[in-house]
Structures are given as C-alpha cells and as structure tokens.
C-alpha cells in the first residue's frame, strides 16, 4: 500500500461533521473525539454500525439520532457480525447491478466491552471470513456506560466498581488482554493502534484501514473522565501520556509486518524520552489507591508489564 495524500487540519476541517453536536456524551469524553476524527477519514457513502455501548446510548436516544450517516444498532455481541452482513449485502446488490455507488465504506465501532469480552467471537468470525470493513475499538478500559465495571481491557491495578480497591485487593489483579495481538494472529491486512492526541496519525490510520482490501482493525485509546477519575480537560493530555509512557504504544501492522508510528518510534530511538509509568498513574483517580505503602509494589508490577510488552513490540518491529 502506498499513500500520497496527507491530511492537514484545514483539509480535515473542510469535511462535513458527520456526528452532530448536542449528543449526550459526557463533557470531555474521549470516545466523542475518536468518533469525530475517524469519521473525517471516510471516502464517500458510509454505513456505521454500533453495538450497545456508551456512544450508542448517547447518540441515538429514541426517536432522535445525531448520526448524519446511515447507522445501525444491534445487540452487544454483534458489531462485527453486523458489519459483515452489511458488507455481504452490498456484494450481493453489486452482483445484481442494483448498487448505484462504486464503493460503500462499512465501519463498526465498538467499546472495549463489546470487543474484548462480549463481541470477540463475532469479531474473530468476521476477521476469519475476510469481510471488507473497518472495526474501530474505542477503548475506555471498562464498562463505563453501565457504571464502571471491569472488562478484559481494564489495566492492572485499576479501580472499578467490580474490582474495588480495599485493604487486600489493589484494584484489578490481572493485566489487560492484548487484543491487537489476537487480531494480528488472524492474519488480517491492517491492524493499528492510535491515540486522539496524535490526531493526524489517527485520521491517516483510519483511512488506511478503510482502503485496505479486507478486514481492518483500529484500536484507539479513549480516556473517560468519569471512569478514570480525572478532570474533564485532561482527556488529550492523558491520551498523550499513555503514548509517552509506552502504556499504549502506537504502531501499525500491514500484512503481518509491524511498524512503529512516529510518536513511539521517537521513544524507541531515544529511550531517554520514555516517561516512567507513575506519571500516567498519578494523573488518574482510579489508580490513587496505589500511592499508599501497602500497594506501592503494584506500581512496580505495572511498570514491569509495560516494559515487557514494549520490549516484545520493539522486537516485533525489529528496532
């Protein structure tokens, strides 16, 4: 794949806003920024499908909708199955000559609950069948919509209502599931991670995902002021810190070949730039219990997990 275009702020600004303002997402919501930016990458006619999740309940309260593109909502586990069905229907229409468009982009947006836990079998099936669609995972690292319950994407040591920090348990005892590696193992043409702080990187990756021939997967971190317990103005700062501390490194995998993206590559080439994970943790209230004498060891454990995953990623990218 080679790309000659480049997005600039002004060029993106020329594109129509496909998610209308006046939706019910919280003030400072990271997922809202992710949706706005990813929708800037569409090439023309687009269909979006959502499973249940924060964005679904906040943008489509019956009988109103904020979506300026055709939009389908289905059950929690079926984001990928639904996108696969839409794509197959277009294929059938094209075969009969009843499709008036040359191409229709199919996008599925799902939260971490709908991807890591509930939707993984539908996702795995759709990836294996090779449908041509873009799956965007906006990862706010817990079931925020129903009141901050733990999911497979919740990081080690994080407080949630189902993994409360007490005197014995330091928040969630397990590290998060490496969902991108699971998707890469399916052998799909395009997998990438992105952060809204690096907005141009995010829009370009969304476009690459749409242009890939076959399923594409985009994992985007979407900080949640309510669930992560921080002030709403720090959403972008935290998504930047996640990249700088290598908690959420940015990379893309085209046809099985890993490549670091510019913000993470800078850290790989100059390891001094890598910030300690403490800076990311102390900015969030959900990790505040770790800064007590009895749970300080968990911070070291988190740093160890992050370092190990970063080391393995560097090896994959052969840096």
């Amino acid at each position: 794949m080679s790309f000659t275009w480049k997005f600039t702020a002004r060029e993106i600004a020329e594109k129509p806003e496909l998610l209308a303002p006046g939706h019910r997402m919280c003030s400072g919501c990271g997922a809202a920024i992710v949706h706005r930016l990813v929708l800037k990458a569409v090439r023309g006619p687009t269909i979006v499908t959502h499973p249940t999740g924060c964005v679904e309940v906040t943008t489509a309260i019956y009988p109103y909708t904020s979506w300026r593109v055709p939009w389908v909502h289905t059950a929690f586990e079926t984001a990928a199955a639904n996108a696969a069905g839409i794509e197959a229907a277009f294929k059938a229409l094209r075969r009969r000559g009843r499709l008036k468009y040359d191409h229709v982009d199919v996008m599925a947006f799902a939260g971490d609950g709908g991807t890591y836990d509930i939707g993984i079998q539908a996702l795995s099936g759709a990836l294996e069948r090779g449908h041509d669609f873009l799956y965007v995972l906006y990862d706010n690292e817990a079931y925020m919509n129903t009141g901050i319950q733990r999911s497979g994407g919740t990081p080690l040591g994080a407080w949630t209502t189902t993994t409360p920090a007490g005197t014995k348990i330091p928040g969630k005892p397990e590290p998060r599931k490496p969902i991108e590696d699971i998707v890469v193992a399916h052998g799909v043409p395009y997998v990438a991670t992105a952060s809204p702080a690096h907005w141009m990187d995010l829009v370009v990756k969304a476009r690459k995902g749409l242009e890939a021939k076959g399923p594409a997967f985009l994992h985007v971190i979407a900080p949640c002021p309510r669930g992560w317990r921080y002030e709403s103005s720090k959403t972008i700062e935290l998504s930047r810190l996640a990249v700088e501390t290598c908690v959420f490194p940015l990379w893309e995998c085209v046809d099985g070949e890993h490549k670091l993206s510019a913000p993470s590559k800078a850290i790989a080439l100059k390891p001094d730039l890598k910030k300690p994970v403490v800076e990311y943790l102390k900015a969030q209230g959900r990790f505040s219990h770790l800064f007590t004498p009895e749970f300080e060891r968990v911070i070291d454990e988190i740093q160890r997990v992050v370092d190990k995953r970063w080391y393995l990623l560097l090896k994959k990218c052969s840096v």
Partner: protein
Amino acid sequence: MGLGRGASRGLRDLPPTILSSPKVGSVGRTGSWRLSRPVINYDRCTKCLLCWIYCPEGCISRAEDEKPIIDYDYCKGCGICAKECPMDSILMEMEEV
C-alpha cells in the same frame, strides 16, 4: 401472522411510527451542562484549529477568515480547548448562576 393475504407490504402500510432524522442537538441544548465557559482571545489566536480538532462536541465552527467560533448552545465546558491551545488564548470563565 406473517405476510399473508392482505398483510402490509410497503412502508406506507405499516402502523404509524416515528422515523428519526439526524439533527443538531438531538437531546436538547447541552450547553446548559456547562460550569465554566471557554472564551477565545482573538488577538492571540493563530487559527491553528487545534481547539476544533480536539473538541469532543464538535461545537466549534470556523468563520470565513478561519477563526474558530464556539457554539455556546452545545458547548459542555469540558475545557479541553483551553488546555490544548498552544498559545493559551482560550480562558475558562465561571458561568454566572
């Protein structure tokens, strides 16, 4: 029942229901949620549009001369624009109650 003889066949024959069409402010004027309001100092603004990029609400629009304008009907006052402005030209002012 199914689609037997005399059953409804087209959209028009279906029982009356509400069809939704997308609109701005689908859940009302969310600006009423705001605690503090962002105010742009246009003397310092370089029109980089970063506030527009990072606005979760999408309520910042551009005037003809590219300067950003905030729609206070929908701005929820999160303060991301003020935090991310490289020129510090956006200030958050407390709303009067």
